[in-house]
């Protein structure tokens, strides 16, 4: 099991992921944490700090897995957040690709 960190951007609510150098819009560019402890530390030190700097809101850790070499969220809720509504492939991040 690996982990990533997600939040919503304060200004527009868009789903963002914690990357190596700040917040990114695609799960593929997110920083992957192999250990839960490392993810917890990043949540506390970096994500909550960015929440205090008014960049993002509601940061959280979620489980990820690799399928056919592609990183995806293990749980359907986060998978939908990472892609967009399943009933509107023209909307959300999935529409950009």
């Amino acid at each position, binding site marked *: 099991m690996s982990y990533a960190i997600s939040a919503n951007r304060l200004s*527009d609510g868009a789903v963002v992921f914690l990357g190596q150098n700040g917040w990114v819009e695609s799960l593929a560019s997110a920083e992957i944490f192999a250990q839960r402890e490392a993810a917890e530390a990043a949540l506390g030190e970096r994500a909550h700090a960015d929440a205090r700097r008014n960049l993002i809101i509601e940061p959280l850790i979620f489980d990820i897995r690799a399928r056919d070499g592609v990183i995806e969220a293990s749980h359907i809720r986060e998978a939908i957040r990472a892609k967009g509504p399943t*009933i509107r492939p023209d909307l*959300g991040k999935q529409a950009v690709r």
Partner: protein
Amino acid sequence: MYRYDEFDAGFVADRVAAFRDQVARRLVGEMTEEQFRPHRLMNGLYLQLHAYMLRVAIPYGTLNARQMRKLAHIARRYDKGYGHFTTRQNLQYNWPSLIDTPAILEELASVEMHAIQTSGNCIRNVTADHFAGAAADELEDPRPYAEILRQWSSIHPEFTFLPRKFKIAVTGAVRDRAAIQVHDIGYQIVQNEKGVTGFAVYVGGGQGRTPLIAVKIRDFLRKEDLLAYTQAIVRVYNLEGRRDNKYKARIKILLHEKGADWMRAAVETEFANASRDFIELPSKEIARIQDYFAPPKFRKFAGPSENFESRRESDPKFAAFASTNVDAHQQPGYGIVTISLKPIGGIPGDASADQMDIVADLAERFGHDEIRVSHEQNLVLPHVALDDIVTVFDALAKSNLATANAGLISDIIACPGLDYCSLATARSIPVAQRISERFGEGARAREIGDLKIKISGCINACGHHHVAHIGILGLERKGVETYQITLGGSGDETCSLGTLTGPGFSSEEIVDAIERIVDRYLLVREEASEDFLTVYRRIGMGPFKDALYQTNVGADI
């Protein structure tokens, strides 16, 4: 319809200005999210899965063409070209940015709309029969009273921090299309033995995780006492309602924990003791508000509409539309047209900005500038001359708005579910889409007849599954979506809550499961006019359970 006076306009403009200031302070960090969140919610702005969501109030589901065009404009300019009409007769935008929200609210204010009290523990948007002022079975238009309640409850200082949210519904008809018995307060306009109209008062209904049917606490309330009595109910709730547990904080829990007799006595005592200063509703004031809702100037028609009748005879598609989507109007020569937002395989309640504009145009040209939003997530043109319905139908058909399925199995209520909602545990919309595709709007759907399927994506029950003839509740079990089925619910005047059939079904299984129930119904009904709910109430759960779980195969039915 009601028009803002100087006070209303000033109040809404002040709120927009205040929120603009709050957003600016939030963006530069002068307010923390914890400080800002209550302000955001008080202006209808939630955070959902993908983005913010703005819930716009449509008081008692009534709006005009200008307002609908503004909703379309906002969808295009600030959102992604569509809006979602909800089971609370409201509209939700799924993608607004925080930065744009003050501008959106300003646009709404320019057409006398807002998003105030669409969230929070206050008295929410008052809902009403979507056929109000038009239905043939109506005693009196309930909207003036809904408007009076709206004015009275807007930022009412005493009732801004209730134990939990509070929903009021009003109907003036014999048939309850407003589901008043599953609201915190339901008012039904009735006539007493002297021929005077007033209200029957229902209290303590609701859906959510603890569904309960309201109790009638008064057979007749004078109209003059509408606000005093409402104040008494909400006051008792505000003082006695539980605040220790948000899941037990609604008035329905208070009523059912303490009993109907206690509630009745507490309300009557409060009602008798409270001062009537400022709150007695003089008949002059009722009449003043009623003027806003005066019926339009209807045309007089000598006989049946030849236009309508000849098209009905020659065009089966129009005939199907006329039978399901046109209801009896109180005015001869007129009909009530339901515009289904349930195209086969579509997303229940969604309308594109272009579709909103089309509906606005038709309302203006043929519908006395009136549009309604139904809690069943459809739109309604309440006053259309039968002579004009053919033209309206043709225009709707060009915009994929003429699906002839109002009240049929594919006219499904579905909450946004896990595709959008941060509370949801499973998706609702894809299930609705697949059921709709399975049964369609054609001969099979018409053969099945009146059947209400309602789907919620979590136990909060925004999809009204408890009062569905066939209810579907989406849950999560070990990370997988699973769907429970309830049967026999109804939100009308014969209100009942659905009963759970048994173990749930996977997403792959759920549509076949629904079909087994429907097939069993077709097999056991005594005649084509015996609808699903009637059959269920006659024969009970057993035969449906057998069909659903394939037990008792081969046994006599």
